[in-house]
């Protein structure tokens, strides 16, 4: 764990307590069973907003607390532990686009509503099944945006889209010219196809040529923070299970083959934590975040993948049942691995940035 300020420690403890008491995995199971397209509990999200979490990265002038990205990462990690679904990460990533690329008018128009939780915003970047921001066909003419965006996170509930077009990022409000089709993915969260057909679009004209990269870095690091929470919880659950499950007259935790696998997972998750926290602090520091973000997401993908496989294997048959929670972590982990670039994507990006 990074060395935290008193405020950050309080925030993390508050998030841990709330998630543990008010939003345990059972709460997600209810949302999952309800099967709504939005894929989260609106009342729970309202509570998060009341606690100020929707404004953590938004300046005080626009109704936020300006606590920074490490602080938001701590909350997202805690929520990841209990599989708490919400548009918190999607809205923050979209808000960062407005912060970095928006005019004063655009900031005043949208950021206070995002900070209050009243407005859900999201990024609409990829147009195919794999993360590939370099290939964008969506285009704008006369202030009207047309194109199709694939697997838009929280697309079913978003009121505002930050859309990548051929010549930059645009703000498009839900409504006329925007049609949303549900895609029912394995994690039961919202990943909609959005067709923009001459939708009214306003350009995010500030922020320069690095704007899209900077925004995607923030989205990738937040996904990594969620994965860190999920991996940590998966590890704890597995360790507790190995300590109570008896076979051959022994608790499984006494078997060295399993001890060494757990020691390896412990090491890997600690390394993952270093990479994720460094990604978050790099954003707080400002400047070029590309290498730090790719480092965080690549490591999060590798370790998240390994941990979710071991979670199932080390639990044996019970981990395969829907009644048990392990499957939730496995399925959500694979989705997060794909979002904002898989491990190979980020290794290639890191290699290019390093001049290899």
């Amino acid at each position, binding site marked *: *764990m*990074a*060395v935290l300020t008193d405020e950050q420690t309080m925030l993390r403890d508050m998030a841990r307590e709330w998630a543990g008491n008010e939003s345990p995995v059972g709460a997600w199971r209810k949302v999952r069973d309800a099967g709504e397209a939005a894929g989260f509990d609106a009342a729970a999200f309202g509570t998060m907003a009341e606690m100020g979490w929707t404004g953590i990265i938004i300046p005080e002038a626009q109704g936020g607390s300006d606590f920074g990205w490490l602080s938001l990462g701590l909350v997202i990690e805690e929520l990841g532990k209990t599989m708490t679904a919400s548009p918190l990460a999607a809205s923050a990533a979209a808000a960062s686009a407005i912060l970095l690329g928006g005019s004063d008018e655009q900031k005043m128009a949208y950021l206070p509503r995002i900070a209050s939780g009243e407005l859900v915003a999201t990024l609409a970047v990829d147009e195919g099944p794999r993360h590939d921001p370099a290939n964008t066909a969506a285009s704008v003419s006369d202030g009207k945006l047309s194109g199709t965006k694939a697997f838009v996170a929280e697309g079913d509930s978003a009121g505002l889209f930050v859309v990548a077009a051929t010549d930059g990022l645009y703000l498009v409000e839900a409504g006329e010219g925007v049609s949303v089709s549900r895609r029912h993915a394995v994690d039961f969260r919202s990943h909609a196809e959005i067709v923009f057909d001459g939708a009214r679009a306003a350009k995010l004209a500030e922020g320069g040529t690095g704007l899209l990269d900077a925004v995607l870095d923030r989205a990738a690091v937040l996904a990594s923070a969620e994965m860190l929470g999920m991996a940590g919880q998966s590890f704890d659950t597995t*360790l507790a299970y*190995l*300590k109570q499950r008896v076979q051959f007259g*022994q*608790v499984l*935790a*006494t*078997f*060295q083959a*399993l*001890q*060494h696998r*757990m*020691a*390896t997972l*412990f*090491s890997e998750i*600690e*390394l993952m*934590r*270093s*990479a994720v*926290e*460094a990604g978050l602090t790099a954003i707080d520091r400002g400047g070029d975040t590309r290498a730090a973000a*790719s*480092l965080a997401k*690549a*490591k999060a993908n590798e370790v998240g993948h390994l941990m979710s496989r071991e979670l199932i294997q080390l639990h044996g048959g019970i981990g395969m049942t829907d009644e048990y929670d392990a499957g939730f972590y496995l399925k959500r982990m694979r989705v997060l691995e794909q979002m904002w670039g898989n491990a*190979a994507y980020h*290794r*290639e990006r*890191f*290699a290019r940035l*390093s*001049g*290899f």
Partner: protein
Amino acid sequence: MATLADPVAETAVDAFRDEVRAFLAANFPPSLKGKDNAMSAVEGPTAETPEQAAWRKAMGAKGWGVPTWPSAYGGGGLSREQAKILAEEMARAGAWNPIGGMGVMMFGPTLLEYGSEEQKLEHIPAIARGEVRWCQGYSEPNAGSDLANLQCFAEDRGDHYVVNGQKTWTSGGQWADKCFCLVRTDKNQKQGGITFLLIDMDSPGVEVKPIRMISGMSPFCETFFTDVKVPKTNRVGEEGQGWTIGKRLLQHERTNLSGGGSAFRMAGPSLADMAKHYAGVDGEGRIADAELRARIAKWEMDWRVFQLTALRVLAESKAVGGVSEVSSILKTVGTKLGQERAELIIEIRGMQGLGWEGEGYGEDELHSVRAWLFGKATTIYGGSTEVQNNVIAKRILGMLDHQ
């Protein structure tokens, strides 16, 4: 602690920095830059040049080779802050520390903690001056990872012991003056029967045989003790206390083998530049072998994550005022990455990276082959990776022993 807001302390800091600069200017000739014996622990003490000897003596007289050891025993007696300034100024001048070895890294700190006043006065100043080489008598043919199984026996003969038995993997044993040794004084207790003894390597009955390793080097020896007489004044702590003292010494060893240190020490040419040189570049100037390029990228990222973790451990240790439990993973991760890097270098260079000696190979190419082979030891010594995993599982994760 001194802060910049305190003008008195600030003046003292400046004065100390001036003192260090003056000392370096007077005693470290620029011609010695880069001419340390970094590999002397493995390759043996190469003959010291008069310049190197003068530099060692100058540092030894100041005690600055062991800057934070007490000055009463020949150490520098510096505060942590002063030691940091010394390190900064030495780095600025390109000066290296001529005082090192097992006496500094392991034995000295342990003796300062457990030794008698007479023992400290006898041994610590000589270590601080870089005049005495120490070796470690721990492992035996049947006591490797299971160190407490050691059998080398010290029989009580009143005012002295008579030691019989064999030690192995004695690093630098052929060059050592003295050996800190774990011996058995009680055959009826495992850990509780172990005692910590100091043995002169020139005592009658001590025989040292270097072991030739796969690297062609002989950094380790077998050491045989036959009726070796050791005065009881050479016992550190009480009889049966050797396991406690010996384990404390291993903590110092692990800190040095992995700890914060190695994460920042691995220097050398960039793998990518090497790959571009040996494997060529494509039309866009990238490493031509795409698969190799991907694996180099992965290694560099893993290495960066390891460095971030070492930094995090330092920051956490400072914040909580103790050792972070994450430090336990640094040795296994750091040594694994070191070996992976050595393997990558061999692979990048192809046949040119597999030379043993002689014509047709560059000095650096030959060196990296030996380093690759020697480096296989890093996941075995100082607590093998498997032993470290046992420690993590049992002590940190609370997984129990098999019944």
